[in-house]
């Protein structure tokens, strides 16, 4: 029974992984690619590791898989935030169909405050 639950969780994680990587190939812009791929691949990999926990039970593999889930949930959004902030500061343009750029307005507002 628990092996069936683990297999279903692993298949759900694979669907999320595949959609995230499809977004990494198909979307037009670095920020769109980051937003699509990081969220989907983080959730998909955590579902795969949770499936490994259900597949094996709580032993050495299960405890390490739970540690790995916690670690990926902490670090992957941090890395994505750092990459997007760095690429915005390095001056990579947004896609031409983008609606708004709030971070650019915020940075220009803070520069004006420093001048006055």
């Amino acid at each position, binding site marked *: 029974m628990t092996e069936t639950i*683990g297999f279903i969780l*692993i*298949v759900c*994680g*694979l669907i999320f*992984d*595949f959609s*995230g*990587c*499809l977004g*990494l*190939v198909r979307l037009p812009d*670095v920020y769109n*690619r*980051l937003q699509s*791929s*990081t969220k989907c*691949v*983080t959730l*998909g*990999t955590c579902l*795969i*590791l949770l*499936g*490994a926990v259900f*597949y*094996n039970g709580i*032993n*050495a*593999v299960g405890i*390490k*898989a739970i*540690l*790995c889930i916690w*670690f*990926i949930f902490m*670090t*992957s959004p*941090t*890395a*994505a935030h*750092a*990459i997007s*902030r*760095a*690429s915005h*500061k*390095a001056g*990579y343009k947004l896609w031409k169909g983008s609606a708004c750029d709030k971070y650019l307005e915020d940075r220009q507002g803070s520069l004006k405050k420093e001048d006055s």
Partner: protein
Amino acid sequence: MTGCIVVLIICCFMCLYRIAFGPTPSDRIVANDILGIIIVGFCGIFSALSKQDLYMNIALAWALLSFIGSIALSKFLEGRTYDD
């Protein structure tokens, strides 16, 4: 179970396509980050198959090193030095 591994290999080739043909260096860094997380998923599936905790040790170390590499590359992209 071999179908799961085939799907993950297709995901890895999508990331390698973006690393090879990405127009900007930022795309390559994003694809490198994603490739690291997918390899952690690989190790999870292998350890679920073989019921050994060897692959889960590799997954923990790989998640750590992938995070540190992404942070270092993004600091390099921002134009700072490694000191501050």
